[in-house]
């Protein structure tokens, strides 16, 4: 804090101005030499590097208490800048708006998907929840159910979550048994590991054969359940095997019976790994269900992406992708919340 006033002022100026001047010089120089069309990747890399140098110079010039807020500003501002650049490049025609529609068009498409009811498919994006009071008065609970039934998001979410739970719960149970009992482990481990590496989406056609209604919900839910099961079972097994043996010995030495061992030692000790398995399984479930909806579905967000490819409306494709991202973020956040609740000792 003993720096002289002149140095506090003098220091930040050149570390910021110099790289900014460099950025301008590179941009103009490349323009003059006609390098943009062929060398834009390299030019962007140089410009980005200079930008980072300038921004870091700016941060060093700031008082320490502003360093953290500065990082948050960067974290929001830069993505906003990218969006703005996208918008400008698309409207100016520098990038093809057919494949890269400007963000405003995507937002508009998202709004259209949300508010309109597709009469052909009898679907809507989120099921028009603002109609719930009217439908409830009109035809009671069945009216609300009809709204749920028309929702793409709900279709995907219900398939995925039912499949996830149906797969994960037995996965945890089998995983714990395999972790605790070396005979069961010896019998099942090689088979499970072999099936684990198989991309589960590959067994979807087989499941369509197995189920009476190949186009119904059965095969879709099952393929998600199978994907979740193997991930959760094998990571739970690893978690149980990884329990520090001295904790098991302490439980035994202090008189825990089998059930008490399970409840007070084995389950809490393997929870961290169980949850990391659940996180993996959740991500995989979303991948699998979207892929299944590409192939064989008349509803769901995966179908929405695929359908809008078929009718060539990219803005709606992007909108559907945004919805899938939001679902992924929402579900992951929910799982993290459950994780913190289940393991208060780790936060």
């Amino acid at each position, binding site marked *: 804090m003993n720096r002289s006033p002149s140095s506090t002022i003098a220091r930040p100026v050149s570390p910021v101005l110099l790289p900014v001047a460099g950025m301008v010089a590179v941009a103009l120089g490349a323009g003059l030499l006609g390098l943009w069309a062929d060398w834009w990747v390299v030019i962007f890399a140089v410009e980005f590097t200079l930008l980072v140098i300038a921004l870091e110079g700016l941060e060093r010039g700031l008082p320490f208490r502003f360093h953290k807020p500065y990082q948050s500003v960067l974290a929001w501002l830069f993505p906003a800048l990218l969006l703005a650049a996208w918008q400008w490049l698309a409207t100016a025609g520098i990038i093809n708006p057919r494949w890269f529609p400007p963000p405003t068009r995507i937002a508009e498409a998202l709004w259209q998907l949300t508010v309109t009811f597709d009469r052909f498919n009898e679907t809507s994006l989120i099921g028009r929840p603002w109609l719930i009071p009217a439908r409830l008065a009109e035809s009671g609970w069945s009216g609300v159910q009809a709204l749920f039934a028309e929702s793409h998001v709900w279709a995907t979410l219900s398939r995925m979550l039912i499949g996830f739970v149906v797969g994960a719960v037995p996965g945890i149970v089998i995983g714990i048994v395999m972790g605790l009992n070396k005979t069961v482990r010896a019998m099942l481990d090689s088979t499970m590991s072999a099936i684990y590496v198989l991309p589960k989406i590959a067994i979807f056609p087989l499941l369509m054969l197995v189920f009476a209604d190949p186009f119904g919900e059965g095969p879709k839910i099952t393929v998600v359940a199978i994907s979740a099961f193997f991930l959760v079972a094998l990571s739970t097994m690893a978690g149980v095997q990884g329990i*520090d043996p*001295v*904790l098991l*010995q*302490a439980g*035994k*030495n*202090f*008189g*825990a*019976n089998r059930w*008490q061992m399970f409840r*007070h*030692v084995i389950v*809490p*000790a393997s*929870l961290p790994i169980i949850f990391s398995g659940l996180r993996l399984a959740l991500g995989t479930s979303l991948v699998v269900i979207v892929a299944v909806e590409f192939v064989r579905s008349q509803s769901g967000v995966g179908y929405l992406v695929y359908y809008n490819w078929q009718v060539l409306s990219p803005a709606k494709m992007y909108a559907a992708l945004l919805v899938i991202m939001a679902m992924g973020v929402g579900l992951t956040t929910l799982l993290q919340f459950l994780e913190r609740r289940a*393991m*208060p*000792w*780790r936060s």
Partner: protein
Amino acid sequence: MHDKVIARAANKVYPSMAGDVPAIANFDLTIKEGEFVCLVGPSGCGKSTFLRILAGLESLSAGEARIVPGADPRKPLNNVVFQEYAIFPWKTVLDNVAFGLEMRGVPRGERLEIASNWLAKVGLKRFASYYPAQISGGMKQRVSIARALANDPEVLLMDEPLGALDAQTRAVLQEELLRLWEESHKTVLYVTHSIEEAVLLGDRVVLMTAHPGTNKSEFEVDLPRPRDLSTTATARYAELTGAIWDDLRDEVRAAMEAQR
């Protein structure tokens, strides 16, 4: 005082691909009720194995090693204070101390009261609601000691409990152990590789030979109680540790040769 721990011709053999490996051979030990016995030997001599056999965590291959039950059949025979603390990260300090009581079905109110009394005795009352990850190594070992004492076992088995702590924390905990023992006069089997610690804490120091472990010799520690760290400055203390070291040196050499 009658005998509390009895071991006669105790043998422990580990099976291996190259044949059976003896860990303990014909080891004898008797501990009287209320006696503090330190078991000392070179590393790998089987002293911890013997403690774990008494704790019921490992089986005996041949011979006898048992704890004599007391008048109250509900009282647990033994509890272990582990070198690695082995307290449960998912339980609060208070719940950790109450663990043994909870497993025995002591009602919640009663067990928490007993546990918080023990927490007060080890100076951790303030940390009752903390999780183990939030406290230091020395505090964790205090929790582990309180957990064992709260369960009030016939015999307290301590397996190098201060081995993982730094020298200063260890000194503080040694004094705390002396104070706690003065209050309870529990029967203790204390495994350590530190002769200094054994002489400071114990009534008797039992030496084991290098691998496989068997009786080497025994030393009565006639230092007056109550003791504290100033005991280590007395001439008798120096004499005892010196004598024990003279006796143990060759075994330590042998153990080093064997490990190489």
